[in-house]
């Protein structure tokens, strides 16, 4: 892997995944689509971390540990976020992010 695929290739893949996720998070109309974009971005960050761990410090566990903590935080974020989507849907009867604008001045 190290000899065959250079590190910038993996970094490019992660950056592309992050940008696709950012596009989804910013342009989807419905809140669940936004959350799916955020999940894609978190995955891209994890790919980056694992790539750096593998290419630079494969004998230490720090990179993998960081990625595991990010996965745990992402799971918590997904649970709370989807619960909020359900609460918003119950209150506003919509999941369109543009229609939930009660705090708009």
């Amino acid at each position, binding site marked *: 892997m190290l*000899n065959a695929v250079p590190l910038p290739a993996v970094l490019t893949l992660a950056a592309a995944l992050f940008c696709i996720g950012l596009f989804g998070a910013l*342009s989807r109309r419905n809140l669940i689509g936004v959350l799916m974009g955020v999940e894609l971005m978190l995955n891209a960050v994890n790919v980056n971390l694992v790539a750096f761990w593998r290419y630079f410090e494969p004998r230490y566990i720090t990179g993998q540990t960081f990625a595991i903590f990010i996965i745990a935080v992402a799971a918590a974020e997904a649970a709370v976020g989807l619960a909020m989507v359900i609460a918003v849907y119950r209150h506003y009867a919509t999941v369109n992010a543009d229609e939930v604008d009660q705090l708009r001045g």
Partner: protein
Amino acid sequence: MEVVVQMVFGLIALFILVAAAMVVSVRNVIHSALWLIACFFGVGALYLLLEAEFLAVVQVLVYVGAVSVLILFAIMLTRQISGEGVRQLTSRWPVVLVVTVLLFATVMTPTLINQQWNVPPAPPLGTPEPIAGPAELGRGFVNEFLIQFQVVGVLLTVALIGAIVIAFEERARRRKVLTLAEELELKRLRERTTQTETPEPVEAEPVARETRPASEG
């Protein structure tokens, strides 16, 4: 050997990117969630290729197993959005596309052109490379990363309780357990005067449900 690895990496990368693009562009939200699961699988395969086996297993367990099920359930609970006829992107999506492409270019230009990475050379083929595996990870979690490990446990518990508190309605407010669709029908009935759209035809059943709890209370 190297060509095989390169081909596998290329296939995985193509799979991940196509799946991610489908996630953000497909109209049906359920199809979008299924493409998201495919994308998670692709990232797990990439972890395997990068020789992070434990992370690959965690990825499949947490993302493919738990997060995707959560997302599918949320989609099913908020039903009316998953139709194909609904427009799924906001009207400002071309601007967002330009911004993300610019961000990609800004990030990748220095990375690819003038960054010297100084990657330590891989050991010659045949000699095993020391790679931290699950055993070292487990030892790290009970030694140097013990506090962080506990904090993440507390965070997960708090998130669990918080999700329940946010998503559940108090029992006192709803005297009869209604599904979300029935609650929506009730809400539409009540707000029919203020609603600008033409209200959908309402069946007789929710009306009866609405009057009965009111008389009980």
